[in-house]
């Protein structure tokens, strides 16, 4: 694009009236929307919590949970937020090597979390917790499964952003693209903190 008439308000790159780039603004809106999605799923889980006991319909959460294992996977996911912050900081400094390093590490930590979840699902299933079995099974698998899907999509996304850093396509590897992927990643992380507290830790309180 020629820029020899930059003094005129033509429709080249209108400055965002709201001060936030379009992509970032739209993404914040998506996160608001996704909050309602997880809010509904969590509300569903909580409204059915403990109902199986009334129906004598096991297995119950404490028969299955291993808070040690889930704490490790939670720690893993929290650390991925740290590496994500480092990736955003690296691309802000223009350091491509570190950007790739931290993006890759974030995706790896995310994949490890998904692996933990796969292990947990398999383990619970073999212990007798079926999607169709009782309300705990239905609500637990759907809530944590949706979160796991979000993490998986996040890993794919991070790998795509990582792939674009190797392309010749200038303008793809922008600070904004990494930052927006980071927004998503932190959001998924925060949702997990809520799920970990409400679904797992709350079972250990009186």
């Amino acid at each position: 694009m020629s820029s020899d008439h930059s003094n005129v308000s033509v429709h080249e790159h209108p400055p965002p009236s709201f001060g936030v780039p379009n992509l970032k603004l739209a993404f914040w809106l998506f996160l608001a929307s996704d909050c309602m999605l997880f809010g509904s799923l969590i509300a569903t889980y909580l409204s059915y919590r403990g109902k199986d006991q009334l129906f004598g319909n096991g297995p119950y959460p404490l028969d299955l949970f291993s808070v040690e294992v889930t704490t490790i996977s939670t720690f893993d996911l929290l650390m991925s937020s740290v590496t994500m912050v480092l990736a955003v900081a690296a691309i802000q400094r223009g350091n491509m090597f570190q950007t790739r390093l931290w993006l890759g590490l974030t995706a790896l930590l995310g994949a490890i979390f998904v692996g933990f979840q796969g292990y947990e699902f398999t383990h619970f299933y073999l212990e007798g917790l079926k999607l169709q079995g009782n309300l705990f099974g239905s609500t637990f698998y759907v809530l944590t499964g949706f979160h796991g899907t979000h993490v998986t999509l996040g890993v794919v996304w991070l790998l795509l952003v990582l792939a674009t850093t190797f392309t010749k396509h200038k303008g793809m590897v922008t600070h904004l693209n990494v930052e927006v992927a980071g927004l998503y990643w932190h959001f998924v992380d925060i949702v997990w903190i809520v799920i970990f507290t409400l679904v797992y830790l709350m079972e250990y309180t009186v």
Partner: protein
Amino acid sequence: MASPAIVLPEHCSEEKLSGIWSWITTVDHKRIGVMYGVSALSFFVLGGVEALAIRTQLAMPNQSIVGAHFYNSLVTMHATTMIFLMVMPLSAAFFNYMVPLMIGARDVAFPRLNAFSFWTFLFGGLFINSSFFFGEAPAAGWFGYANLTSIQYSPGPGVDFWALGLQTLGVASLAAGFNFIATILNMRAPGMSLMRMPVFVWMTLVVQFLVILSFPMITVALILLSFDRMFGTNFYVPEAGGDPLLWQHLFWLFGHPEVYILILPAMGIVSEVLPVFARKPLFGAPFVIFSGILIGFVGFGVWSHHMFTTGLGPVADTAFSLATMLIAIPTGVKIFNWLATIWGGSIRFTTAMLFALGFISMFTIGGLSGVMHASPPIDLHHQDSYFVVAHFHYVLYGGAILGLFSGIYYWFPKITGKLMDESWGKVHFWSSIIGLNVTFFPMHFLGMQGMPRRVYTYEGGFGWDLWNLCATVGAFTLAISALIFFINLLKSLANGEQAGNDPWDGATLEWTLTSPPPVHNFDLMPKVTSERPFWDQKYGSTHGHDDTTEVAEEEQLPAEIHIHMPPASYWPMVVSFGVITFFGGWMIHPAVAVCGALTVIVGTVAWTFEPE
């Protein structure tokens, strides 16, 4: 001074912008708006035919023109079609076409995402309706109450079509929601502060916030439903401890904001039409705007007034009753502001103006019966009776649809360059008003006399015979009025009078452009100095500002301006196809759904790497 020459990229040349392929791959908000409009009006005909079948069946007692089950399908599909495939997309047509023009933008924030929204909506609508040809149309009502929707009580594929189709439509609406909020907040022309935005744009903004915050809840409700039906989960299964009321909560948490998603666009249109044809600025515009925001906000806190009869207890009933009555206040503020706008104005009774006035009067009737339902003891009597049917048809036909018709008559000249025929328009208006009152007013009586909703026939001798026949006559009057509208539309399109740029002496930016507007909208970004920029330009400021003359003319303009236009793309349609394959695929085989998901991923990646 001479205006600069506009140079558009090669892909915007005349021959590149004709033919079917150019429509399929278009990312132009104006063309997408037109496609939304045409699709919505086609679904309007379909939903109307369903309504006629319903009214024919109910014209006299003990008829069996359609069977009980097919009648249920008709009721379900009439509501689903009119809400999701007619009123919402027709509103979207105006959002698409008008919002960028009214805020002085070249397009929406994400043009390809916009195309994706349209195709996803269209595929979703066709998918739900294809159920008529694949065994069974949905028959559990548009509200789909659990556990009527369970495999046990709805064994056919209808509910699956409905649930998966609505998911698809939800994806379309959500994508459009993010897009339009970003557009409105971020792409306003210099000087157009939020409070200078046209009220229609404001109402669009409120509606999109309602969409992005309420649709996820029905998404979850439908996911749980589909899981129950396809994978045997227990979310709505009482025997396993599941609670059918969970569905009602999730559904109405979405469903009540949805009511405002349907009506606020019409309120926005009326707020544009009334000032122009009364030749007065909108009375108390900030109050109209804040009332709209308040309606949207409180609209999230009233959902349980749809559930008074489920026995939520006196505390919940009181809270929701109060909140519901509160919503009448901002609504009333708007109505009085509209009345004050026309008060003392020099009114021109064009068809657009008549429909706007019709909106105010008919919507008020629907609003009054609505406030009655806010009282739980009264609601207990009205619940599931024809009184409720009367109420929401006054709000949706007398409100939303009359408002949208007003918008069609108002903006048709801008979109096509032709005026719609005014005498046919007036016949359309009066036949609509007569038809809708003859159809829906007697339903108040039927409800009071105890006629339940959603029954496919009734015994004679309850005093229902006359009013049912009356409603059926009214329904056919409405059909004739719609026919008159379509004749007028086609006639005016073929050989309507030339409209010129500004046939109504408009106040907002879209009237500064040619009719139809050029593909790139504005040559120069308009400078806005008040909420009525075009009136200021024509008549001088009414605000005492001195900077009303076009600032752009003061600047040194280059001889030619190169305008960046996004190239056409077929990827949005491919991704939409992936979305519908993903959702629809579950009905065939999970492998098909996986193919759909892969199409979405591949399409999205290709889309990302496309030059913008």
